[in-house]
């Protein structure tokens, strides 16, 4: 419910801003993802995934044209790879992501951004639906190149603030000892954005 409230609030806010200052883009790219944990998984390796989505960017204050509010709506793959007895086991965790952020253009073609991801679990190839938490929050920061052009590039580092796994603590002999909440995602995104509506550059 709280998650829906945040999404609706943001969209209502965005609708109040004149269309003339909006920039709409499509984004696609690759993720390098791994998890941080308290030792329950042994050693994990990162893995490559994909993300794609759309975003809206607005300049809320006319007198600060370099500062903008941007929101991404993404489908993104996170996860980890386990190595056990020489074999690799890939665990994908897929999310629908709502990521509002503040963006600041330091120069015409160079910007930095930072915000929060609100991720909604959609699918995984391991565990059950109840094995993973429905929601994840992550903090991220990144930078962008050639924002004023039709095609721009971005990179972003994202750090999970809430655990993604909700599972059982199973002792080898004694069985279930309780429940555990662990695995925090770390993701590096690299992508390309196509600016399909580009009104912001009229400033």
């Amino acid at each position, binding site marked *: 419910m709280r998650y829906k409230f945040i999404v609706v609030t943001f969209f209502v806010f965005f609708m109040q801003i004149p269309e003339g200052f909006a920039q709409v883009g499509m984004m696609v790219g690759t993720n390098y993802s791994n998890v941080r944990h308290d030792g329950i998984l042994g050693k994990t390796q990162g893995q490559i995934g994909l993300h794609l989505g759309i975003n809206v960017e607005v300049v809320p204050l006319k007198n600060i044209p370099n500062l903008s509010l941007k929101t991404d709506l993404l489908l993104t793959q996170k996860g980890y790879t386990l190595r*056990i007895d020489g074999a690799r*086991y890939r665990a994908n965790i897929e999310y629908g992501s709502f990521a509002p952020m503040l963006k600041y253009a330091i120069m015409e073609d160079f910007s930095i951004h930072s915000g929060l991801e609100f991720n909604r679990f959609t699918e995984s*190839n*391991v565990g059950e639906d109840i094995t*993973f938490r429905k929601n994840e929050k992550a903090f991220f920061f990144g930078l962008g190149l050639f924002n004023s052009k039709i095609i721009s590039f971005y990179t972003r580092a994202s750090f999970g603030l809430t655990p993604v796994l909700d599972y*059982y603590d*199973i002792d080898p002999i004694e*069985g279930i000892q309780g429940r555990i909440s662990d695995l925090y995602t770390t993701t590096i995104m690299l992508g390309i954005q196509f600016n399909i509506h580009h009104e912001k550059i009229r400033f």
Partner: protein
Amino acid sequence: MKKSGFNKGLFFALVIYISSCDGFVPDPIDPRLPVYSESGKNQAGALINNIPFKDHPRVTVFGSPSGGFILNQADTTLILQFSLSEKNKLNEIKSLHFCLEKLTPEDWRDMEKDFGKKFSFENPSIKGKIIIYSNDGEIETLAESGQITIKHIPASKAMAGTFGFTAEDPTGKRYEIRFGRFDYLFQRF
């Protein structure tokens, strides 16, 4: 001209292949084993001497045969048996058999609470064994120490749990069964 049966055979083989489904859902911590579940998935798994063995539903047009069963007798005895196989060696089966006797109504109530009820193999009414099949017949080795925890979930007609034990056969070969878990459909008679 008589038509060759080859194409027809190939067609049916393709239909069976497409309609077959490997229902294995890996554990997020040890993906060699099935995920611990409590919904009657008809699956079990364990590390036997550190080698993963499992039974999981392989749904085909001929049904989804299960390698395990759980049944009760007069509410005082519960028998569980899981036939587990190693990956890519489906014919090399090891069975784990558990027999719980002298169960009380309180035991049944406890099995429905929290993570279920733990039964130790140090209790003479609780027996666990590993059964190895060979050309010379079956070799049964009783559990020396360890436990089986059983959770009964009447709402989903399931019985799930965990187990782990050690055993040594008459020749001195030791078995360590670790991270055992099971989840089968179960209806109390």
